[in-house]
């Protein structure tokens, strides 16, 4: 492979396993090699998960405990996405947030939601079984799916059902009896303190197991029989072939290429059955280890060939763009607003529309959200004052970029080695040709010209894919 092709492949990996990389990062990763970069992503050596949180808290104390106000909670997470030195950890947290979708609309407690995201950072790349145990004990989840109302003498099936339907096996792989028995096994898994919000406000919740409220009777679950408690139910659930398929399909949809929407998975075959088999085998053979599964996926040919085959989520658009232009890797003024930007494009992080999470792919796009995406990117990449844009302009100058063709090609590379259809490429080129060569004798107008070209790349249909 040529050096350019190596860089393009690395841009793809960093986009999917994180929130993209600038030219300097791409060069560093290419120098150490693709497989070594995958290992670094899986086992990051950098201690700091993201930016300077101590400094952030000095300027914005509400970042730490935003309470019921989603904006500072959302900004907290966006800041971590933009500034993280452990990008895959942040990306897998976003993945699990899509799957274990928990929303502030009901939880009304961003402190607790951020705690859940932190749990995803810690457990999201480890054993899937352990992750299920953790999410079962997670206070925000317990409240979100009413397991605090699931009692020995009054079973509430909300959590028990979603554990099977949305978090592991998928519909049609269990019976209503299984739902009931599963729910019974999780009676007594609750949160403390059970103080009402009124009149004194929020109390930090923690998991509490109340033995006296747990139904310890015999249960028959997915053909097995015993006095199951929650963890034993999870053991059975994890080992179902349907579970490996369901989780791997979610991963494929999030990291590789857009799938049909989840409700259609029982009817429609996977986009790439062979790839899904490879992933499932790695998952099962490693005893449900996320790292092994991700390593297999990232190093596979189907992953490397899947460039620009999924529409970027709003969180990816916002975090990727801010990272590219070098904004908000420190607590700059206005940082509280960055959490709202994905909301304007239809993805209110920490507040998914329901426990089913977001529909992805083309569902991200409507006339309002597309306008917001195109303008968000253009407003930033066309701003020649921003450090990341300055770096791109300087790089183009030192590379001697002059002709319209060189300008378009360089802009595509700096925006992430974007691949255009011949038709779009031709249109961009024509547009660039109408303004002639770059005149470096006037650096300001040359910079504006480059910023506009970057904005036009960001406005293409192709750029909506990542």
């Amino acid at each position, binding site marked *: 492979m040529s050096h350019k092709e190596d860089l393009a492949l690395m841009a793809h990996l960093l986009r999917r396993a994180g929130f993209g990389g600038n030219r300097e990062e791409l060069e560093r990763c290419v120098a150490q090699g693709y497989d070594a970069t995958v290992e670094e992503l899986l086992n990051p050596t950098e201690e700091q998960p993201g930016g300077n949180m101590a400094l952030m808290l000095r300027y914005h104390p509400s970042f730490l405990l935003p309470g*019921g106000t*989603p904006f500072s909670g959302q900004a907290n997470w966006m800041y971590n996405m933009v500034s993280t030195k452990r990008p895959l950890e942040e990306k897998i947290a976003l993945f699990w947030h899509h799957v274990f979708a928990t*929303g*502030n*609309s*009901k939880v*009304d407690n961003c402190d607790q939601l951020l705690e859940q995201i932190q749990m995803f950072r810690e457990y999201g790349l480890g054993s899937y079984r352990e992750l299920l145990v953790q999410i079962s004990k997670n206070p925000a989840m317990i409240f979100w799916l009413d397991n605090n109302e699931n009692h020995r003498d009054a079973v509430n099936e909300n959590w028990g059902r979603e554990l099977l339907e949305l978090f592991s096996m998928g519909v049609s792989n269990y019976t209503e009896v299984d739902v009931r028995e599963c729910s019974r096994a999780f009676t007594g898994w609750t949160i403390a303190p059970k103080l009402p*919000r*009124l*009149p004194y406000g929020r109390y930090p919740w923690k998991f509490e197991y109340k033995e006296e409220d747990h139904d310890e009777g015999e249960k028959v679950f997915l053909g097995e029989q015993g006095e199951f408690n929650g963890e034993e139910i999870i053991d059975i659930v994890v080992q179902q072939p349907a579970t490996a398929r369901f989780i791997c399909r979610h991963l494929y949809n999030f990291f590789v290429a*857009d799938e049909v929407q989840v409700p259609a998975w029982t009817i429609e075959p996977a986009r790439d059955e062979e790839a899904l088999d490879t992933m499932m085998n790695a998952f099962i053979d490693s005893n449900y280890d996320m790292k092994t599964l991700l390593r297999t996926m990232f190093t596979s040919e189907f992953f490397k060939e899947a460039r620009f085959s999924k*529409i970027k989520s709003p969180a990816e658009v916002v975090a990727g763009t801010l990272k590219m232009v070098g904004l908000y890797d420190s607590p700059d003024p206005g940082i509280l607003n960055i959490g*709202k930007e994905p*909301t*304007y*494009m*239809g993805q209110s992080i920490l*507040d998914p*529309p*329901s*426990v089913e999470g977001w*529909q992805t*792919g*083309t*569902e991200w*796009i*409507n*006339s*309002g959200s*597309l*306008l*917001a995406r*195109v*303008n968000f990117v*253009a*407003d930033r990449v*066309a*701003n020649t004052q921003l450090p990341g844009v300055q770096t791109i302009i300087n790089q183009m100058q030192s590379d001697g970029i002059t002709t319209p063709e060189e300008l378009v090609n360089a802009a595509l590379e700096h925006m992430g080695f974007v691949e255009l259809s011949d*038709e*779009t490429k031709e*249109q*961009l080129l024509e*547009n660039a040709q*109408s*303004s002639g060569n770059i005149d470096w004798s006037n650096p300001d107008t040359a910079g*504006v010209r480059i910023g*506009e070209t970057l*904005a*036009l790349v960001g*406005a*293409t*249909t192709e750029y*909506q894919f990542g």
Partner: protein
Amino acid sequence: MTSTKKDPVVVVLQLTGGNDYYNTIIPYNDPLYQDNRPNVKYPTDEIIKINDNLGMMPNMGPIKELYDQGKVAIIHGAGYADSPRSHFRSMDIWHTCEPDKVGTEGWAGRVARELDPNKENVLTAINFGHGLPRALAVPGVPVAAIADLGTYGLLTSISDTSQRAKALDLFSRMYSPTIGGTFVNDYLRSTGTDAMVGADIVKVAPEQYSSTVEYPNSPIASHLRDIAQVYFADLGTRIFYTQHASFDTHAGEMASHPALWKDVSEGISAFFADLKEHDSGENVVMYLFSEFGRRVHDNGSGTDHGAAGAMFAIGDSVKGGLYGEMPSAKAEDLEQGDLVPNYDFRGGYSTLVEDWLGLDANPIVGGTFEKLDWLKK
């Protein structure tokens, strides 16, 4: 098309943060008001009397003028059972009409879908503000969000006029339909074209607009002027949505609450004066709500989250007056210190949807709820 034959439209004005109902429509002769509000109350002589019992808070003069012309319906006691007293949950309930579970579709988005099932007009519903409130969000229903009409558009960061014209021309070609494209690409292209067409159409609104009405300088007045401009431009928009914030007056209420209502009242007054100047008043109903009212007893400098609130319907086609009863503020009648809602908020939407827009309300608000007779026949 003459303006009087236009389709009926709705302007929703959301009072975000929980408006203090008890300090907005005030039972000024009730000793309980004085008892409950040692600090957070309006002086009796400044309250604008509606009748012997109730009055509007002092800065609602412009709304009182409309009220005296018979154009303002005040709907008492709006809400739903078991208020969670959480802004976000409660707003969600008002937006989705789902008090018992987490809903995904907004009522106003459903209205847009019913009004324009074939998505012929990308501007059927517009939010004036950033992003979309959940009330307008329904998968597959095109909606626009206009933060500022004056700068609305695609690629507005390209400041040079001729460069921007070239960029827009390029955009329109890049998003024009192709033969033999994939579904995803076709979808992206048609959506991009919709977005551009919408922005392009809307652009005419400020150009065509002329008015002698001077709107005050406040965010809500700017949004209402944007709404007037788009409405007068005859673009087929039926739902205009906007909001004013923040009514979350836990502290310093006697400073913030009057300022909020001053902006809202003056903005509304200018908007209806503008409609009158353009002979368009009969086709517009404005609807005001807040996600909850506030605690009856003040907390020393403000009020905390409560339950029942007031809704307002304003317009030439509205039959003005008081509707329903203000919930009792007697200690034994309160729930956790709050006025108990006695009118389901979905009934208010039902009147709007069914009697004003002429649609079946049941599937839009998720059931049948009592309607009050606040529209002229």
